[in-house]
């Protein structure tokens, strides 16, 4: 549990932006999406998601609005802002490239084993 939640560090913001780029969503759905696709390798807890979303709201990357659900309970939805979209488009390639480089760095030991 601990290790997998560490993997996401540094990528959380861009992951959230990517999910919200597709559609507006609420916190539990966002964490479910991450945990489902992460398949146990990448997980995020609701409190940390909430902390990051609050920070992103303050930075103007996302905004929130309330929607009354069928049970008449207010549910907070998050929406990507135009600044958030711009940030996502501008940085997604950098993140992907950094992942490739990360892969190279991580597999150095494995490659050394194979070569010798």
């Amino acid at each position, binding site marked *: 549990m601990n290790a997998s939640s560490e993997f996401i560090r540094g990528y959380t913001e861009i992951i959230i932006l990517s999910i919200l780029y597709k559609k507006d969503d609420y916190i539990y759905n966002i964490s479910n999406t991450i945990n489902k696709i992460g398949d146990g390798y990448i997980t995020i*807890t*609701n409190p*940390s998601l909430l902390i990051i979303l609050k920070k992103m709201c303050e930075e103007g990357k996302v905004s929130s609005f309330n929607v009354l659900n069928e049970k008449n309970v207010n549910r907070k939805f998050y929406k990507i802002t135009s600044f958030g979209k711009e940030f996502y488009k501008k940085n997604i390639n950098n993140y992907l490239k950094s992942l490739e480089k990360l892969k190279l760095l991580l597999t150095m030991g494995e490659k050394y084993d194979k070569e010798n």
Partner: protein
Amino acid sequence: MIKKISKHIKWGLHDKKYDDDYKQEMINACIEEYKKALKNGLSKNDAYLYAIKDFDNEYYKERIDSENNKINIKNLYLPLSVTIIFIISFLLCTQFISDKVFVWSIWVFLIFNFLFLFIYNIFNLIIKKYGIKTALLNILFMIILYFPFILIELKGNRYDFNNYIIAFAFCITLGIIFYTIKNKFINFTLSLLLLIPLLIIFGYYVIFSELYTIEFILKLLIMISFIVVCILSLIKEKLNCKKIFFSIIFLVLSLLIFFFLDDAIQIYSKYTVLSFILIIALLVLKFLNIKIIKDYSFIIYVFVFFACVKVICSDINIVYRNGLMSTMNYQFLVSAVIFLVLILLQKYLYKIKCRKEFEN
């Protein structure tokens, strides 16, 4: 455990920059994690630690920093009060002041506290830390706390220290009752509304009836309140040892106050014994970490201390009448030092407790 999570989050998000919505969302999110962790087979305590882990990583440092650095109006209150204690202590120790001045100093202190808390509440109302309801209720509660002192003035026994002791005991009782009611039983506003007519009726009898003295009425009120609180605590908290212990202490106290103390003690007056019991009760409360009423406990503490010391000193004075007058000063100074050490110790223990809560 859910209550513990909620308390933990509220403590961490103390700053007014976090609105209530965010606090509630965070509590819900942590409870969700806690339930998930329980389903995954973690023990209750491990699930709790897991649920608050991310929250602590983000807010623990912030809270501790703010605890260490904050300079707010409340922090100024303690040094100010301690300074006043020292000034009065000095005057008392040098025996330059008469009983009249002592009573006036109590009144100055009362007025100072009233004004301070009044301004404090209005200030919080202006900066929107308190809602109008909370501020008004606080002010109303302060007025009720001053009720016995106003009675003393109206009945004209201003220089009878025994009345002050009973009045302080009344304040403590009220504090305990409000704390219990507010946290456990019925609505705070409702309880205030119920109490006001009750106080008016009692006040009427005390002022206009020759039959009942302030002492009798307040003692009666204290005893009834103690017994009610004890019974309610025992019913509601039957599995909680701490609460049962607390209830039994006050049940015994109430019986002592009403029956035993009347004429039983010869050498030291009954009020000295009552004063000792009050001091012990306050210490027990402090060390059991039962807050009487957050903003008022310190003031009540100071009041009780002053009145008790004065009465105790008078007794000692009588006992050592034959040439040992200095004992009074010695006793007073020792009591003052013990009192200050206790305040500091309590503050230190509270800080350690907060840190431990976050570090475990």
